[in-house]
């Protein structure tokens, strides 16, 4: 949480008295309730009066909503109010029919999530098949993946990473909370293991330089 505190540290504390914590909690509550999308601590700070510390208010507010019908959840660096997942059956009326994702799209999404930042060539190597433009486009359109930094290898290929919208959709606090991530990593299945010489896909140009250290960097 230290990063949150840093972000919320007001630069000038002198000019106005910050509102009492109870009031700050009400303000955070009102702002989060009003927004369908997660709100970052920085934005909360910007919208609240001078000297307010939304990070602290978030902690107490989160406790207050613990076990309620609506919960305060963390999404990446932002926070949002969401109905408790166990009450989903009451909300069928609100369900938005989402397009069925193809198997290729689901697998590609999982590979981006678990291997990010990942290049298209790496996705293709893992799936053993070419990734169609439409698959990537669909995930980009859903705003579940976005372009990351270019890889510093010959050709400077673009990489893909998952977005906050992705985290929000799957109720994840961060990409570190992906199910089974630790097990996959300790089994070495997230390594970019260079193929020994000739390989069927002949993907000599792309792998090897991924560097595990780059995974899940912020």
């Amino acid at each position, binding site marked *: 949480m230290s990063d949150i505190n840093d972000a919320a540290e007001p630069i000038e504390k002198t000019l106005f008295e910050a509102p009492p914590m109870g009031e700050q909690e009400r303000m955070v509550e009102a702002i989060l*309730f*009003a*927004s*369908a*999308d997660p709100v970052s601590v920085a934005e909360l700070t910007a*919208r609240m009066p001078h000297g307010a510390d939304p990070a602290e208010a978030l902690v107490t507010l989160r406790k207050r909503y613990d076990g309620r019908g609506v919960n305060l959840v963390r999404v990446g660096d932002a926070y*949002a*109010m*969401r*109905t*408790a*997942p166990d009450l*989903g059956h009451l*909300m069928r009326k*609100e*369900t*938005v029919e*989402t397009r069925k994702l193809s*198997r*290729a799209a*689901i*697998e590609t*999404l*999982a*590979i981006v*999530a*678990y291997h990010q930042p990942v290049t298209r060539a790496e996705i293709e*190597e*893992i*799936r*053993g*098949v*070419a990734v169609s433009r439409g698959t990537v486009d669909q995930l980009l359109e859903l705003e579940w993946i976005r372009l990351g930094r270019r890889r510093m290898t010959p050709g400077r290929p673009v990489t893909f990473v998952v977005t906050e919208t992705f985290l*929000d*959709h*799957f*109720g*994840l606090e961060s990409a570190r909370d*992906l*199910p*089974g991530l630790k097990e*996959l990593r300790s*089994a070495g*299945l997230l390594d970019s*293991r260079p*193929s*020994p*010489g*000739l*390989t*069927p*896909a002949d993907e000599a140009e792309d792998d090897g330089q991924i560097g595990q250290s780059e995974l899940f960097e912020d």
Partner: protein
Amino acid sequence: MPDDWEDDARLAPLDRMAAEALIVDVDGFEGPLDLLLTLSRTQKVDLRRVSVLQLAEQYLVFVAQAQMLRIELAADYLVMAAWLAYLKSRLLLPPEPGADGPSAEDLAAHLAFQLERLSAMRDAAARLMARDQRGRDFFVRGIPEDVMRHRKITYSATLLDLMRAYARIRTKDEFRPFVMDRNHVFTMEQALDRMRGLIGYAGDWADLTSFIPDGWDINPMRRRSSTAAHFAAMLEMAKAGQVDIRQGDTFAPIQIKRREAR
């Protein structure tokens, strides 16, 4: 055909059924790796201990049958088949002493790794999709309140900007008299008219400066303008073949004479 039947007969009935099912379904596979993963399931072992040799054979049988049934296989299936045939031979033969490159065991291990990784990613994808999802299991605020955005624009300009702007205008201003003040300018057209008239009277060589009208030789600005105009007019006439020009030395007076008509 008999040969093919013989090949087929070597397969265990279960394997044959599996292979036939696969053939029917060839369009359902997402590439050779997907097919290999499916084939490996028939071994019913941990993917780490999968027999790549056995897998290679299964794959080659699959490809052979597909070809027998005249099913068009995509190129990458055939590339994989060629590679697996190569790997199979490498695995069966003793390693050549002093051979370069990775060993057959390394290649087999990497293939097993690829299969395990693909399988793990599929499981991960399934687990991801099984999570509570927004809009299906949990919901956002149904009446989000729009944040009214008030955009406040402040304009900035520094004293330096102001001075620069003024300097820019004033610089423009200072050139204005030069443009406006036509009474200090003698144009080439004027000089040309004048010289055409005068040249006929001057039968012999005459100094160019003698053509400059009275009143244009004292004021330096007028003198410069009229000299330039007459010089240009002279060149114009020389080009038209109307006059000859001569100059004794550098900076010596320029003299002109009407060219005799032939």
